[in-house]
């Protein structure tokens, strides 16, 4: 499946496992948070990369202890009006220092990408049927931002003499 990653269209290397599918011996996989917690030992030994999928009501604190294990955190936006994932992204980056890939999935539309990127998201699974090419333009909707966020820790007035 094609996704947007670091502002380019790429093939998703991960297999997204539900809780009943056995973990394959190799390859990149993501699991739910509960499976990550219950099969931590096993996943720590996994030869491919490991990611977790968070629901919109699962908090960064719930996953904070597992960060060293993770190469990817996926946060679900069940409806694009559900904005909890923006705070989740910022906390993972700003507070817990997560440096790996942070991916938005679910009802992800072009017009959220600018905000999501500012909140620390680096990859995006667009909602079905959306043009990825068109979505790429959204990162350039605005040339400046007033506030500090995950992508830029200083507000405008500390960056530029106004």
């Amino acid at each position, binding site marked *: 499946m094609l996704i947007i990653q670091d502002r380019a269209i790429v093939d998703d290397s991960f297999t997204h496992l539900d809780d009943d599918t056995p973990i394959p011996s190799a390859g990149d996989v993501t699991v739910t948070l509960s499976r990550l917690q219950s099969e931590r030992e096993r996943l720590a030994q996994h030869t491919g990369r490991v990611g977790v999928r968070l629901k919109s009501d699962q908090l960064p604190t719930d996953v904070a202890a597992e960060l060293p294990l993770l190469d990817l955190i996926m946060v679900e936006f069940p409806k*694009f009006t559900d904005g909890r994932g923006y705070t989740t992204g*910022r906390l993972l980056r700003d507070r817990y220092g997560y440096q790996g890939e942070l991916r938005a999935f679910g009802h992800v539309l072009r*017009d959220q990408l600018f*905000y999501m990127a500012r909140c620390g998201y680096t990859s995006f699974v667009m909602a079905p049927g959306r043009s990825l090419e068109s979505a790429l333009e959204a990162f350039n909707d605005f040339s400046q931002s007033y*506030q500090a966020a995950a992508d830029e820790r200083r507000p405008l*007035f500390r960056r530029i003499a106004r």
Partner: protein
Amino acid sequence: MYQYDEIDQRLVEERAAQFRGQVARRLAGEITEDEFKPLRLQNGVYMQLHAYMLRIAIPYGFLTSRRLRRLAHIARTYDKGYGHLSTRQNIQFNWIKLVDVPDILDELADVQMHSIQTSGNCIRNTTADAYAGVARDEIEDPRPWCELIRQWSTFHPEFAFLPRKFKIAVTGAPDEDRAAVRFHDIGLRILENAEGQRGFEVIVGGGLGRTPLVGEVIHEFLPQASLISYLEAILRVYNLFGRRDNKFKARIKILVDALGAAEFKRLVDEEWALIKDSAIDVTEEELERIRRYFIPAAYEELPSSDARLASFSLGKDRAFGQWVRNNTRHHKVPGYTIVTIAVKAPGQPPGDLTHEQMDALADLSERYTQGRLVVTHAQNLVLPDVKTEDLPALHAELLPLGLATANAGKLTDIICCPGLDYCTLANATSIPIAEAISARFDDVDYLNDIGDVSLKMSGCINACGHHHIGNIGVLGIDKRGEEFYQLMLGGAPGNDAAIGKILGPAFAKHEIVDAVDRVIQRYLTLRESPDEPFIDALRRVGLEPFKEAAYPDAKKDKRPAASARAASATTVAAPETQGT
């Protein structure tokens, strides 16, 4: 007045371009109406009964003549020739075509205006005391803080999809709250402590709508320099924990109420401890930069004009005298006066201005008040800096424009939502009732005898007309397909914040004006002196005498009124409330 630098300017231009693209994609069918809706809402575009409504931001209500002229041009070119001042100190146009909106946004950007975040579940236009910068009782001009909040909240990436809309108000006058800060998601009062330091009293979780609540103080004296980190902490707690399952329970007031103010404060403090004293808080230089724009322009050195103002109000020209008495206020600079233009002429929908009036007001403001105007939350306009000696000339020029109505703060200075005439959610008309009340109490002497009393009216329980905080509140409800009106008394928006109490069963449309009249008559007979305002008399004697007056035929009937429950059972389907 804050002036955009090239960065501010580029951002509003980029926003207009972004929305142009969104409209094009919507018209091409690339996005569904459901997906488009939050995008248009965040640009102030509502779907109304007959057309789209566009709400344009007037940050903290402050306008210049140039901007007002542009609004007149928009009214003329894209609307039916008039605009509507809203209770959030914004202006709304009710007859807009969606395809025209991108062009309108370009026209606005050209004069440093926009419609960004004037609706939608995001941080809305921050409001302020309409007398900010000129009020005598102010300890600090709140507008630089409002501008700081405007910039911080504009396109804030974390808080663009909150559980529900979010409104902030600021006042710098500790003794008289004219910004209704206790009825906002966040209200900020600038205070000074014994050491002469300034801080904010932070009030959270106030609001009207179907669950009216007075806000709770969660910080008694926040150091001013920490404002942004503290706001960010509040918003973060709300964004994570505010309810998203039921939009009627999604405002922050419900969260604060459910957790209790102490627990909510604990969560905020916990979050704040991790982000305070960081780079996000404002620097002294930035604050100074913003403040420079609000330094008052050239005032002449004049002697005090307080005595002059008093003599004007008692002069031979009765109409002028009444207008001075009701529509002016002492200015902090000697020789100047604050003038309220009541946009409440009899027979006119409250807050409506024609494009001719806008152009004329722009012109007057340049000649009399350095090109500055303020939209108030009472849907009026303020000319903040009029030389007292110019008042007779100004009044003479306002008369032919129909803008010299001498009723500011009086019964007919009604706040009223668009109601059934425009709004898809309305249960009842509101504008025609306001007009009928204005017609009934048309006599200025009579109005002055009644004295200061606020009447606020909403067409449904979404309360865009703030009926809960009117001394007299009128709420339109639907009873088996008929328009009915509930009457409530005792609401107050200021330092004596209170939510009005329902008087009894709702009145039919043909009864409501008489009922208001009977309440007023009762007040006139029971007040201790003409100096005892309506609200004081009500607080002294309680609801009962007014209830008797309002329901003369039900004197013997002591059963409790059932209408409170009837009102809360009224159902409303769609979310696009309009009046604020």
